[in-house]
């Protein structure tokens, strides 16, 4: 397996009212192609900051982040935007979408903006509909975003993150604003995407979400305190038990 994400001595410092807040302190880890990595940790530990920094949405203070071998800290804003557009997908806790567009238009927006696939609008729209069908929400394609449920909207966000066939998807607590059943549905979809070969890195508080992943990073005070590999061959119950025990060891 090739390394898709390589993080070395990553630091992120915020300065608020002359106070220096070191949110990430010399973080080191790698993600290999096809992995599904969960980042867990207590509130304020730097999980989301880590996600936004390694995905190029936020600038790092020090260290290096290599995405597919290229150092993203050396990229200009426009180059980072193109990288996010073509090679990365994003899913947020709040199901952010443009309110003046229909669900389908929101889904295909990145593809229309990108010249990666060089296809006609009708072809892009068809791909968007196929994705929605794949996630079982084809009926809401032409709905406005305030006409659908949170679970449906989050699945539409997953479709949007997939539309440009990204090399990696970053998800910030994708189930955080969903009820249990919607949450499970969304995680099933992400797991299926991962099985299809998409690399995923997600931030979560929920062990039931993390257990769907292949590896868990535990972050405390801006440092990775430990990591846990989940054995796919184990039963779900065994995986949950193993993860919970590990989390307890980590002080969860």
């Amino acid at each position: 397996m090739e390394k898709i994400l390589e993080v070395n001595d990553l630091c992120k410092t915020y300065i608020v009212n002359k106070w220096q807040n070191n949110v990430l302190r010399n973080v080191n880890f790698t993600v290999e192609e096809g992995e599904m990595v969960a980042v867990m940790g207590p509130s304020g530990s730097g999980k989301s900051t880590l996600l936004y920094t390694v995905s190029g949405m936020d600038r790092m203070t020090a260290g290096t982040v290599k995405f597919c071998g290229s150092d993203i800290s050396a990229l200009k804003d426009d180059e980072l935007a193109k990288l996010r557009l073509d090679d990365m997908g994003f899913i947020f806790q709040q199901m952010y979408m443009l309110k003046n567009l229909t669900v389908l238009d929101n889904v295909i927006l990145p593809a229309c903006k990108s010249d990666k696939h060089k296809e006609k609008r009708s072809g892009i729209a068809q791909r968007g509909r196929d994705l929605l069908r794949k996630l079982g929400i084809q009926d809401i394609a032409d709905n406005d975003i305030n006409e659908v449920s949170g679970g449906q909207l989050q699945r539409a966000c997953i479709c949007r993150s997939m539309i440009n066939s990204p090399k990696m998807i970053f998800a910030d607590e994708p189930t955080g604003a969903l009820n249990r059943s919607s949450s499970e549905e969304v995680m099933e979809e992400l797991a299926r995407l991962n099985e299809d070969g998409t690399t995923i890195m997600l931030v979560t508080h929920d062990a039931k979400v993390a257990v769907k992943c292949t590896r868990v990073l535990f972050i405390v005070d801006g440092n990775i305190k430990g990591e846990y590999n989940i054995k796919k061959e184990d039963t779900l119950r065994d995986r949950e038990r193993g993860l919970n025990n590990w989390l307890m060891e980590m002080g969860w």
Partner: protein
Amino acid sequence: MTRINKKGNTMYLNILKKDLKRKKTMNVIVLLFVILSAMFAASSVNNIIAVSTGIDYYFEKAGMSDYFVVTLDSTNADMEQRLLNEPYVTDVRREPALFADRTNFKRNGEYLADTTNTIFIMSVDKTKLNYFDSANENITAVERGKAYISGNVPKMSGIGVGDKFTVKFGNAELELEYAGFAKDAFLGAEFAANTRFILNSQDYAVLNSDEYAELSAGSTYYIDTDDVPALEASLADANGILLSIDAGQMRLAYVMSMIVAALLLIVSVCLILVAFVVLRFTIGFTLEEEFREIGVMKAVGIKNSSIRRLYLVKYFGISIVGALIGFICSLPFGDMLLASVSETMVLGTENSSFTALLCCIAVVGIIMLFCWGSTRRIKKMSPIDAVRSGQTGERFRKKSIMHLGKSRLGTTFFLAVNDVISSPKQYGIITAVFAILLMLVMILANTANTLNSEKLLFLFGTTKSDVYITMTGDVMDAMGDPANGNERLRHSFDELEKTLAENGMPGKVHVERMYTIPVSFGCEKTNMVFQICPQTHASDYVYEEGTAPMYDNEIALTYLVAERLGARIGDTVTLTVNGENRKCIITALFQSFGQLGKTGRLHESFDVNGLQPSSAYSFQIDFDDHPGKDEIDRRVELLKNIYDTKNVFNAAEFVKDCTGASDTIAAVKNMILIVTLLIVILIAVLMERSFISREKAEIALMKAVGFNNASVIAHHTLRFAIVALISSVISAVLCIPLTKLAIDPIMGIMGAVNGVGYDIRPLEIFVIYPLVILAITILAAFITSLYTKTIRSSDTADIE
């Protein structure tokens, strides 16, 4: 209880303090719009009052009378006694003057000004009217060696206070210093614009002592009467009257100032509307931003009335501060708007500060009403709004009409168009505001251009000629010689034709002559000015109804005269010429700006021998070789040199010279264009800034999914470009009908009762102004949208 109240008040203050700090941008935007509203309302209401009461106030302050007569003393020495003998005349004031023309005044060896109108030289202690200086102070004394000047000479000559010039009257000569501009209620109107030189009595005596003064002495009689029609009828047979006019008609001479004033009034009303519409929108907009807070407050158990009071207190505070600043700004802004009108008139602005203050208080009241209306929704909101940030899921509009998947538009352009279509109210208001402002500029431009075009030539009762040359001196000579007036005029243009031939541009010369002739129809009797030109045919002129006079017993009248006499086409009126009554049939009605619409036309064969012309228009030249425009312009310049005068015009310039206000209106148009551009910039900047504040989440999301800064900026700028484009199209479509609607009534007052054809210049109206608005909007929106650069894709994590 008191403790709870105290705690509540402290909490209120804390919430307010936090709100003002945290929502600084939106609060500043509301404050700016309050300032604009207060400023526009206060200055505009003041202007409306000053303009609508303008003439009444000015006439009263100047001591104007009911009727005015101007005569040459040589032909009307007994006029004062004659007037005093009339039973319905209650008072007569005689103001002596010496009548001069431009040749009497020189500065540095050149004529002081190239005016074509008669100039009155007067003594300050003999004035019977109140004249005012630029500071609106009554001119009661003039220092020896100084002179105040009214009318158009100061502007034409560019003379400044303290500059010297000479007056030569016969053998008497004086060097005088310009003391300042004099506002003259009787002859100072732009449409009349006769100039007066107001001198010290000793200086006047020097000029008056010359024997030449005897021939040039004249008088203005200010007559108070309780029966204007009877006085007018009794003066109908008086000879040698240069001007006989009542106060009502005199008001019409201010029509050009009133056009400007009326346009300002329209502008003022529009500015008030624009300010309130935008303010209403902004308040609604900012309250939407508060949904989350309102939901949270409800969730923690704060009562509806308390929440509502919180916002009312906040907006009350903002509106008080805004209204106060607006009040201060309104004073210079109002003066700026009125500057063009108050140049020649004394306007009543004594209570302007008080009125402005009342307006600002009213603005605060209106804002509170807006807030009261907008905060009604608080009752309907539930704590869940805090979670949903105001999105209830309810839909009140149609689904998106456009679909990205089916559109051929570029993604960024699609997003911009879709946003405009999806929020019709929001962008509709901005479009309407831009369109109103653009239409104002277009209407003003159409008016200024029309008053400066050949299209109005027919309204001055002249035919179209190649060149018009105004020779006041020759006309004055003719008028001053009752026995040989016609011969002298004939001689003048014979000389002119000779000069033209000698200079290789042979042509025919003719002149429209004016004769004051008493006319009666039934019991109605009036003294009116008829035009005749022996060298043209009555059928060469434009009539609105009927057919041109074909015989010497046929005449055409203007609508205003026909109405005054109660006569119609086919009626026979009586003209008294040299004591002989002549019956004439009215064959046509027409409209005219001449004599403010009170005129008629005689057939060219009508016998005017023995009648003294009261005036004449410019000498009109029709070249034999029918030259093109460039050659005409060259010959105009040549004639200017030959006759050492600037008063040689082509047809369009002649109309401009006659109307006299096109430059003023063009200046007002330019001022309104600047005001419009400032408002457009302000609206584009403030609205875009509030959109950025409102759409922070969407901007962050767009960046997160891969839109670069340029795309986001283009998206935001394009929305305003689309709005400006739509408003330009709306303005272009509506500008012609709206110009007719707004300006035709004003043209009607001047005598064009059936309206006029407007000179619409497509390049200026449909290309340049829309492009200027478009460019300014795009520039303002673009610069403001650069602020989106500060929103990062990672801000999606911080958005509430």
